[in-house]
């Protein structure tokens, strides 16, 4: 009912297009990982670890394609994607809602080498090196790739040096088009190429980075590597002019963020053996 749709490429099983709020753009999403740098922690050979994000080279793709199962129904349409036995995702659109949910599941991360897993959303938007990240869920801060607002940056870490804290939202704009990815927890995020957003989901580093914790970042549960599950909510809309529901993209994002942060609570009770009429 809200013309919110996404397209899946039948050959690769990956997202290929998004249609929302009257806007329609090519958009692909994929999972990649950085191999964590392993060094002896002298000045320029720091390891990636609990305190330090330092990739060894550029990101590698988890899988160029995904096995898919598509479920359609009156309330929700969803695509179950399996990229590998440690990375899968459900992409869903609820009827009546104006966002696309990416319910990702990562882990146990196969280590050696240590891996720092990201999800990447790619569009043809012309963003001129700019992107916006929120500051603790409040105002949005302007970020420019390889630059700082108050001094000339000498880029020592081309990837980690462009990562910023994303407490709840990261945004790209191109003229009147606005693309926002809302997170359900604080994550690291950036835009290393125009039109692209990446967010870090889960990490397993094999080497302590010598800042005090004295152990590698290898979380575990039930005797195996930790499995992380979470959601991203994607909103595509008009930045200045209003969307079909009369709100700007920012207003829709704010509304959704509040509904997710203070989401309705679900409680369960016995019927005490009463029929519906008696119970009512």
């Amino acid at each position: 009912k809200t013309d919110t749709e996404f397209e899946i490429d039948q050959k690769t099983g990956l997202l290929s297009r998004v249609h929302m709020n009257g806007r329609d753009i090519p958009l692909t999403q994929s999972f990649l990982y950085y191999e964590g740098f392993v060094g002896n922690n002298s000045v320029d050979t720091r390891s990636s670890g609990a305190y330090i994000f330092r990739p060894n080279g550029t990101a590698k793709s988890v899988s160029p394609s995904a096995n898919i199962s598509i479920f359609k129904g009156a309330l929700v349409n969803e695509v179950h994607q399996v990229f590998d036995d440690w990375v899968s995702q459900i992409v869903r659109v609820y009827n009546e809602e104006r966002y696309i949910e990416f319910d990702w599941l990562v882990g146990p991360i196969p280590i050696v080498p240590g891996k720092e897993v990201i999800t990447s959303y790619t569009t043809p938007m012309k963003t001129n090196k700019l992107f916006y990240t929120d500051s603790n869920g409040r105002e949005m801060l302007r970020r420019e790739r390889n630059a700082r607002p108050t001094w000339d940056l000498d880029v020592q870490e081309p990837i980690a040096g462009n990562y910023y804290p994303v407490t709840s939202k990261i945004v790209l704009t191109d003229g009147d088009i606005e693309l926002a990815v809302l997170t359900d927890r604080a994550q690291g995020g950036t835009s290393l190429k125009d039109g692209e957003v990446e967010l870090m989901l889960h990490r397993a580093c094999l080497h302590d980075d010598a800042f005090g914790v004295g152990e590698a970042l290898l979380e575990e549960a039930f005797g195996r590597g930790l499995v992380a599950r979470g959601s991203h909510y994607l909103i595509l809309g008009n930045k200045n002019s209003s969307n079909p529901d009369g709100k700007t993209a920012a207003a829709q994002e704010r509304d959704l963020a509040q509904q997710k942060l203070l989401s309705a609570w679900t409680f369960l009770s016995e019927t005490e053996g009463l029929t519906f009429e008696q119970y009512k």
Partner: protein
Amino acid sequence: RVDLNVMREAMGVMQHHDAVSGTEKEHVAHDYARLLTRGFDECHIITNAALSQIVQKGATKSEHNFHYESDTMQFNSCPLLNVSQCSFTESRNAFVVTVYNPLSRPVSKFVRLPVTGTSYSVRGPDGKRLQTQLIPVAPSILKIPGRQSNATVELIFRAKDLPPLGFNSYYVEKTKKNIVSEPEISRDT
């Protein structure tokens, strides 16, 4: 107050930068989880008491005399919905879902509950049957380490127009049909 203090103490401990940024040792992270879990359990006592007061107040206004065995209704929550696990919904043929809206304006919410049946009838406060959908739990979720659940499908329905700072209750009953969604397309790429 006493119950709430357990959570306040846990949050007090977790003002430490290690808790905020995840730079604590692994066994400390597990201890943080233990403290928070105890905090949630104690806070559940509060939400249970508060919600049963709201429900009783709401009910006493109605013409039916609201009678309940236990002095307070038991409102169970399911903290493991993130691994699609909920022993309460998996083990009952009928149960009541109460959805409380903490915002100061009406909202709607799609409720997803892990179940073991193949079709359910859901009736809202007005007695009408709601549209439901049952979708299989993704295989990768079924095999999450530590998940202990028989649920293989999720029951979905829309809790519409939840009143501000209020709740709606839904009467859910297992029925005999089978409406579990089959994948329209399954493709190994």
